[in-house]
């Protein structure tokens, strides 16, 4: 929770072009850039697009100058911007075809990775987003609601359906219903 102080200090400093402001932003960036990139990559399926959207997310965050908030609030706000960018992104028809193939990894993980990647490709972007936020980021339904702009009750239902769908696409021997 050390980041909470630095992020709050940065937020109250008004993001001025000072060394303190830059240092605060650096802390926020280090704390949130990796999970945000993972989220963007998971949702769009492409590392290059995730790189662009990550930069755009932070730029928009800086431009909007949100009110002072704690680290959870800043994180949620960043995920919200990232979600909006994902939805507003112009998608070409061959986007899915351009999703990057699995990289060579450990033999034991390779099969699982391919299975999960293939299953995720079958899902809608919204479903991938919900699954990532819930299961990888460990967000509660309320936190997901804040990050996506959906209602808490809707999330519970949509998440359940997304999980069922993902499990159907995954090999039965890996995910037992």
């Amino acid at each position: 929770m050390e980041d909470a102080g630095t992020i709050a200090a940065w937020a109250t400093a008004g993001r001025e072009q000072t060394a303190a402001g830059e240092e605060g932003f650096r802390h926020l960036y280090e704390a949130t850039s990796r999970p945000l990139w993972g989220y963007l990559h998971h949702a769009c399926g492409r590392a290059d697009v995730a790189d662009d959207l990550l930069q755009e997310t932070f730029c928009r965050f800086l431009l909007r100058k949100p009110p002072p908030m704690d680290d959870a609030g800043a994180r949620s706000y960043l995920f919200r911007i990232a979600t909006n960018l994902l939805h507003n992104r112009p998608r070409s028809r061959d986007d899915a075809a351009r999703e990057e193939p699995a990289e060579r990894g450990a033999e034991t993980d390779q099969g699982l990775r391919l299975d999960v990647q293939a299953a995720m490709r079958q899902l809608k972007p919204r479903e991938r987003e919900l699954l990532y936020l819930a299961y990888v980021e460990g967000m509660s339904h309320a936190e997901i609601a804040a990050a996506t702009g959906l209602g808490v009750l809707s999330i519970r239902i949509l998440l359940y359906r997304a999980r069922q769908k993902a499990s159907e696409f995954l090999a039965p021997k890996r995910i037992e219903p």
Partner: protein
Amino acid sequence: MKQTSCEHETSVIRALHADQWSSELRQHVAECPDCRQALHLAEALRTLAAQRATQFKPPDPHWILQRSRRMAREIALRRLALLMTTMRTLAVIYAVAVAAWLLRGYASLQYREVASTMHGASSEFGLLGALAAAVCVILGLWPILRGGAAPGQSR
């Protein structure tokens, strides 16, 4: 047909994240197919995310700060350009209206007739004031109008 997940699902995922399992939760996962499914999916997704995270090469935050400042300047310039365009349009409308009034309305009447329809010397002062204001506004807008006529010029 069941449409929502088990109420313990969030606790199960939190326990997975923190790696802190109570015996009751373990027991529940063993008995609840929903939570078991969620747990397995979460493990698979977390493994995938961890593998992908190795590809992540974060850009320098200083570069993002610079870019956001550049974007802020561009937005400010766009707003200023919009303001200038609006002022230019209003200036043109104003100039046309004044010209029409001077040529067709006021010019067709004798100055004294106009003045007599008003009251006393104050109305003459008012009229002169309005004309002076029009001249000032046109003189003030002249640089903007000139700027619009030469798009290659830096503003």
